């Protein structure tokens, strides 16, 4: 059973639909305590980082405990940014801090007509150093996805390329499109709106949930 954490940031319809299409069972835990004993945790999100304020200390503790107990966690879009220490979008709202780094606003480039928000389909590329996959480490999340596969983004802030980055995307800046560190996973794009590529990636996460480490 996958716990889909609903903290009121946008609607979960398309994430639910994607999980159903992949044959996964899910529920939205009403309390942080209900996260215990799940096979996987998903923190979705669209919109503003400030909305993660609703994930208070009780939620944070419950999610950290669940991950420590061996439950994989996937953050999507703002949910991924929240895995880091924080975001310039809402400097007074800390992230859960499972990954080092802070999210910053993307830069546009008027001369090249590259706009912010970054909206649309862009490619998943092999990340540069200091990413571990750059040194030959493999990614479970990106398993079976061809380099250059395109996915759907819609965001103005993004996480930096750190050693946890397993796929990078460039829109003026090169940022982390997907991250992975032990049982903590995150994607800046929307797998639930990224057609076959997105479903494949969600399937990879569900496989990790089903198989443990």
């Amino acid at each position, binding site marked *: 059973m996958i716990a889909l954490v609903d903290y009121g940031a946008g609607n979960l*319809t398309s994430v639910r639909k994607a999980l159903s299409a992949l044959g996964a069972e899910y529920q939205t835990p009403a309390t942080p305590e209900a996260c215990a004993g799940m096979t996987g945790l998903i923190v979705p999100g*669209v*919109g503003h980082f400030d909305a993660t304020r609703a994930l208070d200390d009780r939620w944070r503790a419950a999610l950290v405990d669940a991950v420590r107990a061996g439950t994989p966690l996937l953050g999507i879009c703002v949910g991924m940014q929240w895995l880091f220490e924080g975001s310039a979008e809402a400097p007074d709202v800390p992230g859960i801090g499972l990954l080092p780094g802070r999210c910053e606003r993307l830069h546009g480039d008027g001369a090249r007509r*590259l706009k912010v928000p970054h909206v649309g*389909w862009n490619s998943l590329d092999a990340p540069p150093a200091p990413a571990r996959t750059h040194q030959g480490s493999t990614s479970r999340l990106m398993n079976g996805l061809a380099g250059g596969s395109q996915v759907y983004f819609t965001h103005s802030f993004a996480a930096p390329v750190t050693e946890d980055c397993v796929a990078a995307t460039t829109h003026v800046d090169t940022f982390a499109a997907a991250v992975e560190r032990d049982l903590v996973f995150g994607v800046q794009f*929307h797998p639930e*709106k990224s*057609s076959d590529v997105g479903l494949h990636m969600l399937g990879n996460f569900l496989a990790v949930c089903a198989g443990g480490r």
Partner: protein
Amino acid sequence: MLSKRVIACMDVRDGQVVKGVKFQQLQHAGDPAALARRYNVEGIDEVVVLDITATLESRQALARTIHAVAQEIFLPLTVGGGIRSEDDAATAVDAGADKVSLNTAALRTPGLITTLANRYGSQAVIVAIDAKRHGERFAVYVRSGTTAAERDAVEWAREAESRGAGEILLTSMDRDGTRAGFDCELTAAVSEAVNIPVIASGGAGGFEHFAEVFTRGAADAALAASIFHYAESSVSDLKQYLRRQGIPVRL
């Protein structure tokens, strides 16, 4: 590199896809869910459903249509037409829309753009502008193109951005349904005036029209209806063509 998006639009009335010329002469063009299923397979990047009647009865039918379309696609879905309040937007989002498109209501109540941007994020709020050439300028029309809004399209697009719109859906009323090509001057004028993506609409007839509007028109996305509805042109053929022209697309 960010791809240029190819978007399929369905004008829906009473649960059926219809298509007119210059906003008139409506013809039936099929079942929305069946069309969505085909588009999903062919590689369309996004789907827009516009309710073109927006009476109370049709709005209830629209929620069923949105739900049926959303079941067929794992792509961004935009819903517009008759969204006049936060409640209307919530109904569309709850039925499965990722974005809502505001037109007449945004001009009448510009604060609605900000209200919805605060609730769902700017990425979920599109402001649709129907524009017609008036000499060297582009005038905004509302109420399905029947009423002049006494606003300039470029200036209104800027205001919509400042109020929180995440994208502009820009329709040339002069070109709508004519298949004479997108209005590249209109599109470039708006696209260069704002920092949010602009979706060009109205006039798609051949593959070269898409190439033009992505280059000369500076469009971030291009929307078409009839050329996709009747399966005259396959989306994948269009995208192969665009890639050969050096335009970045998702294949």
